[in-house]
């Protein structure tokens, strides 16, 4: 499975990692809903470090689409709120 970490590039990761990432993702959503910025920061960096440590960086010369898009590691708490509200830079 191909994962893009925004601003950093793409990683090739075993499909079995999906459940683990999904769990961290759910926790992040909870953190944002509860306004717990400290936990949000911790879990976002956990999400990204998990992908980086278990995955393999894909060469810049590859042109492939990703299965999962992960926000940039320095995404602020406010930006995370914007993602759910559909406002700011991260609007679709």
């Amino acid at each position: 499975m191909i994962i893009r970490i925004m601003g950093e590039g793409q990683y090739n990761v075993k499909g079995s990692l999906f459940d683990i990432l999904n769990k961290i993702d759910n926790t992040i959503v909870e953190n944002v809903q509860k306004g717990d910025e400290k936990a949000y920061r911790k879990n976002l960096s956990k999400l990204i470090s998990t992908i980086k440590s278990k995955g393999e960086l894909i060469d810049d010369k590859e042109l492939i689409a990703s299965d999962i898009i992960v926000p940039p590691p320095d995404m602020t708490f406010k930006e995370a709120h914007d993602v759910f509200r559909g406002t700011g830079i991260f609007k679709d």
Partner: protein
Amino acid sequence: MGLLNRMGTIIKAKMSKLLGAAEDPRETLDYSYEKQLDLLQNVKRGVAEVATAKKRLQLQREKLLQSIQKLDGQAQEAAKANREDLARVALERKSAIFSQVEGLDSEITGLEAEQAKLVAAEQRLSTKIEVFRTRKETIKAQYSAAEAQVKISESLSGISEEMADIGTSVERAENKTDEMKARSAALDELIEQGTLVDITRSGDDIDRELARIGQKGSVDSELAKLMAEVKR
């Protein structure tokens, strides 16, 4: 819906905006290529803008360091003239300016990180554009419109995703640079008016009060030291 799902939707929406709908898919390749070159220019401009903003903060920092030196001299002179009150004012100003310098230091570090990220993005994008260009020419030369359709979809979505990602990075960098610009303009004004000592840094009342207490303590001890030196 999870954060990752949301991010996926957002990027897909940005990607579809990047893809023009041409009758002949081979035209879509050319259109995308033009967009890629535009984006590369944008990234380069972003790098230059961040560098300029950083330069400006560095100049301000130098100016502030000069005023710290000047205030130090003034405090000493005041102490020599046995004007403890004046010496205190000078040291208070110095302490306020010092905290501004610290603020600038962290902003400069932030901009440096931003610049490094954009430079990396620029390299990644130019590599991908080059790969795309070669592939595009091959497809245009060898395949009919119908065959091209099949061949291009993966490359096209791969590069569009990269573009959506890098486009977002550039926008975020621009926002940060704008914020810095506004703050450094405000700081310039304060330096000119000589009212720097009055500005209270961000935070609530308690933060400010605590900062004031901390500042007062350091001013008190520095003043005592200065007066003792002069009396010796």
